[in-house]
């Protein structure tokens, strides 16, 4: 489904997604979210198709894809762990979690060699009273001490 898919596959997905958003005003962001939900990232081949379908220049589409942190140009690991590094979590030692992950061979922004986990930073998950906060594949965890991060990571790495 990802980069291993042929251009035609990406093109099919993109055209189908755009067709589903025809009636929306300024549909590019919802379309990009939907493409990424299906393909795991927004591949380079999607850009000319999006430009064609939405009557935009390739530069416009490229500019949008690269502006937002959420849109990936490359596939992520099967599990994505996001550690909050904003102030409220800093006040409870969020950086110790980053350090712990790094020592476990999971530096920020990188995917493990086996493609299982990607660790990222995020600025605030809205759980600032129960920090440090971590999100794993859309699920929120509060009061994450290094030991707890370890069990979360172990669970994911071994799965």
């Amino acid at each position: 489904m990802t980069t291993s898919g042929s251009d035609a596959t990406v093109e099919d997905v993109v055209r189908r997604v755009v067709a589903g958003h025809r009636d929306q005003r300024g549909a590019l962001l919802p379309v990009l979210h939907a493409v990424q939900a299906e393909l795991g990232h927004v591949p380079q081949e999607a850009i000319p198709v999006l430009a064609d379908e939405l009557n935009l220049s390739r530069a416009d589409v490229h500019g949008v894809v690269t502006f937002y942190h959420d849109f990936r140009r490359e596939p992520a690991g099967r599990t994505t762990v996001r550690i909050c590094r904003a102030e409220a979590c800093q006040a409870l030692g969020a950086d110790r979690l980053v350090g712990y992950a790094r020592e476990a061979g999971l530096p920020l922004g990188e995917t493990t060699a086996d493609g299982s986990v990607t660790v990222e930073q995020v600025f605030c998950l809205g759980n600032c009273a129960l920090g440090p906060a971590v999100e794993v594949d859309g699920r929120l965890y509060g009061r994450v001490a290094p030991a707890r991060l370890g069990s979360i990571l172990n669970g994911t790495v071994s799965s």
Partner: protein
Amino acid sequence: MNNSSHSAATVYVPRDSAARSVGADEVADALRRAAARGDFAIDVVRNGSRGMLWLEPLVEVATPRGRVGYGPVRPEDVDDLLAAGLLDGADHPLRLGVVDELPWMAGQTRVTFARVGVTDPLSTDDYLEHGGLVGLRAALDLAPADVVAEVTASGLRGRGGAGFPAGIKWKTVLECADSLKFVCCNADEGDSGTFADRMVMEGDPFLLIEGMTIAAHAVGASEGYLYIRSEYPDAVATMRAAIDIARGHGWLGKGILGSALDFDLHVRVGAGAYICGEETSMLESLEGKRGTVRAKPPIPAIEGLFGRPTVVNNVLTLATVPVVLADGAKAYQDLGVGRSRGTQVFQLGGNIAHGGIVETAFGVTLRELVEDYGGGTFSGRPVRTVQVGGPLGAYLPTSMFDLPMDYEAFAAAGAMVGHGGIVVFDDTVDMAAQARFAMEFCAEESCGKCTPCRVGSVRGVEVIDKIVAGTHRDENLALLEDLCDLMTDGSLCAMGGLTPMPVRSALAHFPDDFLGGRRSLEIQPVQATGVRTEGTA
């Protein structure tokens, strides 16, 4: 021991994502399993959170005396609680008492948050039983200009940070002659230490729909957009579900509640850009573009989304409008101090023992919030500083704790109330590191449109590093001052314009930290103070 009555006992377990982050789902499952075994008759309701977040998961049971709370409850506590008589509100080490009577709750004035944590967020019956739609019905009986006048008279100011009077903004949109106008709700809530918007969306979504519908009637808008950040998947799902339900009940769509008002609402999800909380950047993003800031004028009220007149308000602003219409402008205006009227939803976060939501009239002091409600730090160490109003807000020392929460009083003290978020730090904090982070955050999240912000913030990080390293310290301190001046004066929006606030306040109140002095301070891991804190992973 068993609940002897024939009807099932109603037990509330929050579905708020903060409560779920420490195990609320597992607690609800344990209760349902006990009911499925046939031992107990239990009706589990997933309510919003009461905002006593340090007590989550907070389980409540309905009793003739009121709702009795227990917390924090772990899944493995459930059988024990049931055996002890949870369903009758019986005694147990985790029993807290009648929740409405707890001092932390009883001392608050819950206006915007009146229903949050009390009701099932997606139950229309609950909504109506607890005063829902009273404000909208009152508004629909009034001419648009009279609704605007009521909101203006209430003194309600924008809760998204800048504190601009809501009524004045609405009047501008109402006076535009365009046939197509929009209401946009800013639910980007990117500031660290703020989570009230999220809790309203997850805990009382019909309230926000009602507020946006009143705004639509007041200004003559037919379409609404709710821009929710992607970091809030639960809020997105709850709002989408609530909008569908509202449409099904004629609370949205054509001829709302039998009136002539047609209004429909759409959810849009952000894509991880802090700057998209700035209103013009949010509009660009809604139009499908890069979220760069627009120069003002024209203001969005006149040329907003797709060039049309647009109301842009924060979640809390819009969620407060129904109560203003229901109870009248006077009741709201009677609360507060000076030009800061009504209540503010303060959010206590960071290193704090009792973190959560405190809704109270403006004028409450920082000390009351941090020490009385908040109970000091989570680590048990002394409080050193609090940052108020998000990442662009000032760091204040404890010597300023008697400052009243009031937009003007804060501005006069070189700080800002902003969104009402208060982040507490203990004495292990390194303020040079916090100042550096403010610059780093600005560099990371700048929209890139203007040089003082885009380049100045990168230079800011470098200069602070040099100061801390002791390289030409005096020259670099002077350079940092210059840079802050330039960013304040030369930035198009408050991202670059206010980043100097945390930097300067850190420097003014904690100068020693910039001399490399705190590096030697041994930093201990944070210890829990009494209450159970681990959730169930």
